[in-house]
């Protein structure tokens, strides 16, 4: 193995930019680390080069542990995105620099330099200065310079990022050729999946510090295991259904699940198919490939060699669409496909079937519960009541202001168990609540955060840190006050008419689906404004969205001078209230007559505060 990373972690302050990354690159292989900006891929590269220190884990190059070694003795060759070739030296001097440092005699240096100039296709350019050659040529010089002293590994940090598209393609080809010829172990970091496909022997996809999947390009494209990798490597459609009897069911379709994909009875499963995997036919398809139904072409776009089509299909029972994002008010399924431009136009309502597909592993929902270690177990009970039907994984954050007593962890663990959260992880934190939650969120993406408001909420008002946390949260927060219902059967969604209300519907609706609860859509009209057609339309669209999620819902709307009072009245009949948050820009939660705050303070059942879009 040429490069081995074992559990490598890097933190900057409270942020972990590289989480526990392990990978191996074989001798002579070209490995591409693919990811969006901020995913930590460049940091991994720099740690291998020795330019960034490693907090945990080990790095081995050709069997030698270089984890704590300075960059100089590691014997790596690095090519940067901005070339960084030495501007005051000629091309030849740049290339020879590494050899000069190693005290190679000038005759041999010249020979090697000419070899490299030939290799990168710049013979005769030796006497030019960097400002006299183009960007692509400069990058070639950078490459030659890095290869001159025969490094153990070649590292490239988004080498083609600063170049034009055409030059990029040229250089890509050269790069591949050179790597093949020299058989030097190479690690290339990029965010461009085209590049990855063309160059890589193997690809590793990173997201927010974690190495999600590693594999050969074809495998990752056709059979990704996670949604992120699937969408990063190409377009397509993702539908979510349910696992029953060992098969994944999407309405009438039942598909086998491959062995390597984790699945659980009753859990959700996701189906992925790429645009080119879709077959359109005017007659019902005879093959035994899965049939999705009869679709309607709603959009056609010219795209060079192909034509892109968008089709609407009727809703498949017990299925919802994950990707492409469902428009507000849509009930059915949207599918994207492409056909060669030369192909005949499809029928208006073709049959849609699949020639290929993949089943993705589904990550279960994750909950974060805050427990202070004393007082009633309301938030823990709520978490338990939600986790069950959602099959969610739970992390309990024991939070103590100031010094935590010795056995705090045990206390919290014990409490969690009494709330029947037997498999919850227990974490302990002592800094400010918002900071603590941010730290946890950095490591895990939570679907819901559950915490207690002031137990005496009815009289005294909410604790200030809870309020300030709600102001800035970007995850849905469930605030539990006095009671924790054993079961959630009726959910009240208080929607404002207009844009801000969409998130409330989506998240509230999803929660309802998980819990199998019914939803009441409540909209309080302001009497002065009278009947509003826009509001009406919004409510209808909301209802349609909920129906698409297979959530039973009713609409209630009437005028009332005091919206807070009206909500409180309705709330009495429900197990959970969903309201919208305000987002960090508007500091209005502190205003006394803010509706959300009033509801939070006076309603007895838990309140889900959904962050603004």
């Amino acid at each position: 193995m040429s490069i081995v990373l074992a559990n490598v972690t890097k933190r900057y302050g409270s942020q972990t930019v590289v989480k526990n990354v392990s990978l191996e690159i074989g001798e002579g292989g070209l490995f591409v680390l693919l990811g969006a900006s901020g995913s930590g891929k460049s940091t991994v590269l720099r740690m291998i080069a020795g330019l960034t220190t490693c907090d945990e884990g080990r790095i081995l190059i050709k069997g030698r542990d270089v984890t704590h070694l300075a960059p100089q003795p590691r014997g790596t060759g690095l090519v940067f995105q901005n070339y960084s070739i030495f501007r005051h030296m000629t091309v030849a001097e740049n290339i020879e620099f590494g050899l000069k440092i190693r005290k190679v005699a000038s005759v041999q240096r010249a020979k090697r330099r000419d070899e490299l100039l030939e290799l990168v296709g710049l013979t005769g350019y030796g006497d030019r200065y960097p400002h006299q050659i183009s960007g692509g040529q400069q990058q070639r010089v950078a490459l030659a310079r890095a290869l001159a002293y025969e490094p153990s590994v070649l590292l490239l940090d988004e080498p083609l990022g600063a170049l034009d598209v055409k030059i990029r393609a040229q250089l890509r080809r050269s790069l591949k050729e050179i790597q093949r010829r020299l058989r030097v172990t190479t690690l290339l970091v990029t965010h461009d999946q085209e590049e990855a496909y063309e160059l890589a022997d193997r690809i590793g996809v990173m997201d927010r510090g974690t190495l999600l999947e590693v594999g050969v390009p074809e495998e990752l494209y056709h059979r990704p295991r996670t949604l992120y990798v699937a969408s990063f490597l190409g377009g397509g459609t993702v539908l979510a259904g349910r696992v029953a009897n060992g098969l994944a069911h999407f309405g009438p379709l039942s598909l086998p699940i491959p062995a390597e994909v984790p699945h659980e009875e009753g859990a959700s499963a996701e189906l992925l198919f790429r645009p080119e995997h879709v077959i359109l036919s005017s007659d019902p398809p005879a093959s035994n490939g899965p049939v999705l139904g009869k679709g309607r072409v709603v959009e056609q776009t010219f795209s060079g060699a192909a034509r892109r089509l968008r089709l609407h299909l009727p809703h498949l029972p017990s299925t919802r669409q994950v990707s492409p994002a469902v428009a507000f008010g849509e009930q059915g399924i949207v599918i994207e496909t492409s056909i060669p431009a030369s192909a005949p136009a499809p029928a208006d309502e073709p049959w849609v079937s699949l020639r290929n597909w993949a089943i993705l592993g589904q990550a279960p929902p994750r909950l974060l519960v805050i427990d202070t270690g004393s007082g009633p177990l309301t938030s823990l009970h709520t978490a338990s009541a939600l986790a069950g039907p959602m099959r969610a994984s739970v992390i309990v954050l024991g939070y103590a202001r100031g010094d935590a007593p010795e056995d705090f962890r045990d206390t919290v663990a014990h409490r969690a168990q009494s709330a029947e959260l037997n498999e919850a992880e227990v974490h302990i934190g002592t800094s400010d609540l918002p900071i603590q939650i941010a730290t946890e969120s950095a490591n895990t993406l939570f679907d819901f955060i559950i915490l207690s408001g002031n137990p005496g909420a009815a009289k005294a008002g909410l604790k200030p840190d809870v309020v300030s946390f709600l102001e800035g949260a970007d995850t849905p927060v469930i605030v539990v006050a006095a009671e924790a219902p054993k079961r959630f059967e009726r959910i009240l969604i208080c929607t404002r008419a207009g844009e801000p209300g969409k998130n409330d519907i989506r998240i509230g609706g999803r929660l309802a689906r998980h819990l199998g609860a019914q939803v009441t859509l409540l909209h309080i009209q302001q009497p002065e404004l009278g009947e509003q057609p826009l509001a009406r339309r919004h409510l209808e669209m909301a209802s349609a969205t909920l129906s698409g999620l297979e959530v039973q819902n009713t609409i209630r709307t009437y005028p009332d001078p005091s919206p807070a009072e009206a909500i409180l009245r309705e709330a009495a009949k429900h197990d959970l209230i969903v309201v919208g948050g305000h987002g960090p820009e508007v500091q209005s939660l502190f205003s006394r007559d803010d509706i959300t705050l009033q509801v939070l303070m006076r309603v007895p059942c838990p309140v889900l505060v959904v962050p603004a879009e």
Partner: protein
Amino acid sequence: MNPPVSVTTRRLHSPVFPVSMLVLVLLPLLLLPLAAVFIFAFRGGAVAFLAALKAPDAQFALRFSIVMAFATAAVNAVIGTFAAYVLSKYSFRGKRPLNIVVNLPVAIPTVVVGTSLLLLWGPIGLLGRLLEPLGLQPMFTPAGVLLAHLFVTFPYMLGAVKPLLDELETTYEEAAYTIGASRWQTFWHVILPALRGGIFSGTLLTFAHSLGEFGATVMVSGNLRLRTQTAPLYIFAQFEAGNIAGANAVAAVLAVLSFVIFFFLLRYAVRPTRAS
């Protein structure tokens, strides 16, 4: 039908008026005084001019000033580049106050600089009195003059080199490190050449300022003829003693030297990265 062009519109587009206004302002301020120096210097004709320059005191003063200027530029080139490197490449507590401190000499009146040096290194000074028994006394000697000039011109080299260092992307150095160059090798082969332009203009600026330095020099030098009297001090002393021709001869030489230096400075500053 041609639209009428008013006189005022015509004036707005032609540069004649503003330029002549500028020259009118500059005349009494800069141009005429400088001309006066040369006129007085050559009052007695070229022969008298040369005789005044040949006076041993004048020769000493000119040479001393030039050597001091070179020495100041050389020492400050090293110290200034080092300071620029530390302030640019490292981050540490107190970086911002340190940045302000290194630029202080520009704000302090030069006479105050001279006084403070005397109070530190002079025979009654805080450190000077410790040097007494060792027989070392930097004040009233060329060493003292050098100290004063280094102090006063320190920010100039720093100011010329630091921006170049700031601009240099970190990957520049990192490339050298991964190739295998040590910190020192990187500095010498990679960074220093990139700073050539800044060091050059910094040197010229330092040189020019040292050449003309008066306030601090008059305090620390003791104005001893043939020992520590720089050209500006010579000009002042000769003027006081009534030898106007002699003073102006040296003044004229200083003026010409300064012109030449700034000529080079401007030319070089315009094209800093020519391959040369």
